[in-house]
């Protein structure tokens, strides 16, 4: 099947404005007759639900947390990019576009990325008007900082809690629509199936997490804004509840999965410290603005950091990448840390960590300045590790952080299933093989506030005569039956091992063989190991309690069942992509000095996988990436 990205024709910087002036609209009277379901209340979901409600559509929005405000976007720390050029340092829409394409190692679509850069400026305006308390200068104007992978200061921030403040802004817009009765909000509800009728998305099946009730909800369009799937690795910086269930169920009902193996490993996280560990904590990338990364020059050096003299330290990022230094993109910084540790030069008890040192910055700017920049991050580090970063260097190690892959969508953010949309982290669209810092928040809000409200009209204008979608159709019966069967099956295994046992096991295989470095042998093994885990899970998992009550173990089991299947697909995708690009590093494909070696002749495409049925391998479809404006080069940050 040919994948049509529906990128409008015309010059790159005119595509979006021309599209907007010619897109089909739904008139206000008709909007009232149209129902839209939004799954997710993170930046992508809350902004979409609020904006669609304002336009006059009838919206239902769902999240699994007890409040819309607790979506995982709340945890984002560092900032949000926008091409405002307030610093007059040479930034522009084109530069943000170019940085994003390059940072993504040329595996994203020009049209989508340019649009993202264009609307980035509107996002800041919108958020400020909502009362988001961004950092300001004494002049009263907005402040900016720089972030990894770029040479301009375009990142807006609210101390170390940018995601929180942006999400609370979107949440307030959502609350206003809830009060207006334009949006109906369902918290503690988890989507467990999509309903497709005559080839179109027509609704969802959700489980009320408090009562266990299975419910049907119908609509003319379904928007998935369910976040990333990094928890397939068990340990990640994602919140505990982040999952793939919504998009995986959509995939099994026909939506193609784009570039599933593109995973971002974030370089600055607190290292793993014990068997019981439940998640990893990110230390914002903004720390690399002032912190210097180093290890000892000699292997197995067990001296305290203070006892290692300057000339025996290897500031390896500054050494290898003199022009970007500590600010190289995430994939490069992560791999360099892994290399240093694999070389036996890692620090700390486990040897699986490197130093991030603020001593020089404190000397240069004073403790107060550093504390005003990173105070809350230093405090958080101290709370978790019991060590004071003002006195001793932080120890950091890479951890799974973000998934660039996700449901394949066209320029309209619609999947290949008509009426089913995917926005925010759960789609594959804008970040290619590696995302730049502070760009996920930008994408989530761009999709929800400024893109989807336009593009969805193109499809819904064809739905104004459809009338109310009924929930008593055969398609709904079938979908509900499947959900009940899956839950019954899980509850009836009554095995011996907890859900977490299998999740950890899956996570270990994924991290070891589909993590920071991958190769054909490891990936082939991983696929077999995951198949085994899957068989064991379905024959020996133990879920206490019943399905008709608040049952966190059952919630986890439903999610882990999907993670296991997704894990296998990620390995297949990683195996088929015989090149290294961005976060996907195949050790067989590297330059003599250890950098990722792309193969543009054969792999400049989006790998979109089609589900073919239980125990059948997915089929690969290719969307060739066409570059009209940028010239593909070997990324260099030296």
């Amino acid at each position, binding site marked *: 099947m040919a994948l049509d990205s529906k990128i409008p024709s015309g010059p790159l910087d005119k595509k979006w404005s021309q599209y907007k002036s010619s897109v089909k609209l739904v008139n206000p009277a008709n909007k009232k007759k149209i129902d839209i379901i939004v799954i997710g209340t993170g930046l992508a979901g809350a*902004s979409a639900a609020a904006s669609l409600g304002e336009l006059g559509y009838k919206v239902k929005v769902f999240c699994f*947390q*007890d*409040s*819309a*405000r*607790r979506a*995982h976007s*709340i*945890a984002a720390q560092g900032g949000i990019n926008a091409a405002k050029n*307030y610093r007059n340092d040479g930034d522009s829409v084109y530069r943000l576009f170019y940085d994003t394409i390059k940072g993504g190692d040329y595996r994203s679509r020009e049209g989508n990325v340019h649009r993202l850069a264009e609307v980035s400026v*509107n996002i*800041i*305006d*919108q958020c*400020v*008007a*909502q*009362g988001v*308390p961004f*950092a300001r200068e*004494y002049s*009263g*104007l907005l402040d900016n900082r720089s972030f990894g992978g770029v040479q301009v200061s375009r990142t807006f921030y*609210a*101390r170390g*809690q940018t*995601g*929180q403040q942006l999400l*609370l802004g979107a*949440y*307030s*817009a959502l*609350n*206003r629509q809830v*009060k207006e009765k334009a949006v109906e*909000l369902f918290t503690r509800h988890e989507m467990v199936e999509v309903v497709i009728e005559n080839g179109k998305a027509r609704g969802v099946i959700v489980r009320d997490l408090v009562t266990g009730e299975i419910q049907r909800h119908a609509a003319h369009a379904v928007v998935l804004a369910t976040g990333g799937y990094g928890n397939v690795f068990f340990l990640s910086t994602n*919140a*505990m*509840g982040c999952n793939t269930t919504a998009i995986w169920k959509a995939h099994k009902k026909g939506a193609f999965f784009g570039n599933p193996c593109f995973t971002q490993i974030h370089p600055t996280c607190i290292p793993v410290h*014990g068997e*019981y*560990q*439940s*998640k990893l904590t*990110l230390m914002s990338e903004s720390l690399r603005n002032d912190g210097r990364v180093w290890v000892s020059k000699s292997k197995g050096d067990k001296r305290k950091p203070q006892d290692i003299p300057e000339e025996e330290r290897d500031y390896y990022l500054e050494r290898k990448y003199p022009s970007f230094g500590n600010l190289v993109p995430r994939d490069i910084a992560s791999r360099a840390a892994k290399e240093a540790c694999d070389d036996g030069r890692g620090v700390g008890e486990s040897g699986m960590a490197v130093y991030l040192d603020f001593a020089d910055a404190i000397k240069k700017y004073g403790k107060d300045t550093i504390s005003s920049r990173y105070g809350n991050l230093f405090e*958080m580090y101290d*709370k*978790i590790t*019991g060590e004071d970063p003002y006195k001793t260097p932080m120890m950091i190690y890479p951890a799974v952080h973000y998934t660039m892959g996700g449901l394949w969508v066209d320029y309209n953010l619609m999947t290949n299933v008509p009426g089913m949309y995917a926005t925010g982290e759960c789609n594959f669209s804008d970040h290619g093989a590696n995302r730049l810092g502070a760009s996920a928040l930008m994408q989530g809000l761009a999709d929800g*506030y400024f893109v989807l409200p336009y593009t969805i009209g193109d499809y819904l204008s064809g739905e104004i005569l459809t009338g109310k979608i009924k929930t008593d159709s055969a398609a709904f019966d079938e979908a509900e039956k499947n959900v009940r069967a899956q839950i019954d099956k899980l509850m009836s295994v009554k095995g011996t091992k*907890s859900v*977490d046992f299998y999740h950890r096991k899956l996570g270990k295989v994924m991290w070891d063989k589909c993590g920071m470095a991958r190769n054909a042998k490891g990936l082939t093994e991983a696929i077999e190991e995951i198949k085994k885990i899957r068989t064991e899970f379905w024959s020996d998992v*133990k879920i*206490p*309690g019943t399905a008709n*009550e*608040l049952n*966190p*173990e059952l919630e986890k089991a439903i999610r882990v069942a999907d993670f296991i299947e997704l894990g296998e697909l990620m390995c297949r995708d990683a195996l088929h992509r015989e090149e290294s690009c961005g976060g996907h590093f195949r050790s067989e494909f590297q330059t003599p000095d250890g950098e990722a070696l792309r193969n543009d002749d054969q792999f400049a495409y989006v790998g979109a996988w089609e589900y073919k049925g239980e125990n059948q391998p997915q089929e690969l479809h290719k969307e060739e990436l066409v570059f009209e404006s940028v010239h593909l080069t070997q990324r260099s940050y030296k």
Partner: protein
Amino acid sequence: MKLTLKIWRQKNKSDKGGFETYQLNNVDTHASFLEMMDVLNEQLIEENKIPVAFDHDCREGICGACSMVINGRPHGPLKGTTTCQLHMRHFNDGETVTIEPFRANAFPVLKDLVVDRTSFERIQQAGGYISIGTGSAPEANNIPVNKVDADKAFDAAQCIGCGACVAACKNGSAMLFVGAKVSQYALLPQGHPERMERVLNMVAQMDEEGFGGCTNTGACEAECPKEISVANIMRLNREYISAKLSVERE
């Protein structure tokens, strides 16, 4: 280290509930409080018992999901710290730790340590926003904000909506939570046009939800994991009185 845990168990909303005691023999001091709870739950599953239900998600102190009253204090003994950011190194070997849900009139228990905080949602829906439609915002730097006010607004905006202030208060008052939101918008020029309606609506909803009145005990500020200041309650009172007066004058 070894711990004895006395935990509130309650099957559902209508169950009476009561304490159960559990032993944990091998708790790592570097583990977080919730990781300790994970270990307990693994043990309970192993023993064919029902694990303890509790709310949590980010485990980074920012989503506001985790709750629990630990040894009588919401979010436990450490100042300015959520339960998920509390580590076992702050407990002693052999200690007995009592764990209860956040209790308040307006927070009914759903199961074990999980409570229903949707009353907070309804307060926010009553007025916790600035009425600006998508796409109609002016250029951001056309609204300069004095840095001091911006910083104060930020301090108030840090509230994570956890409800510890309510659980800490003998009256079950939500004044700190409401004061934080009202203050954020009252301090910013963007919030001024709807200032009066906002405070009146939010306070009316707060009363309707069954939160108690404020008698200035300061327990809320002491237990708030984000150290939201009671100055925000004073600002709430001022905003409320001036809104009330001006409505009466009209």
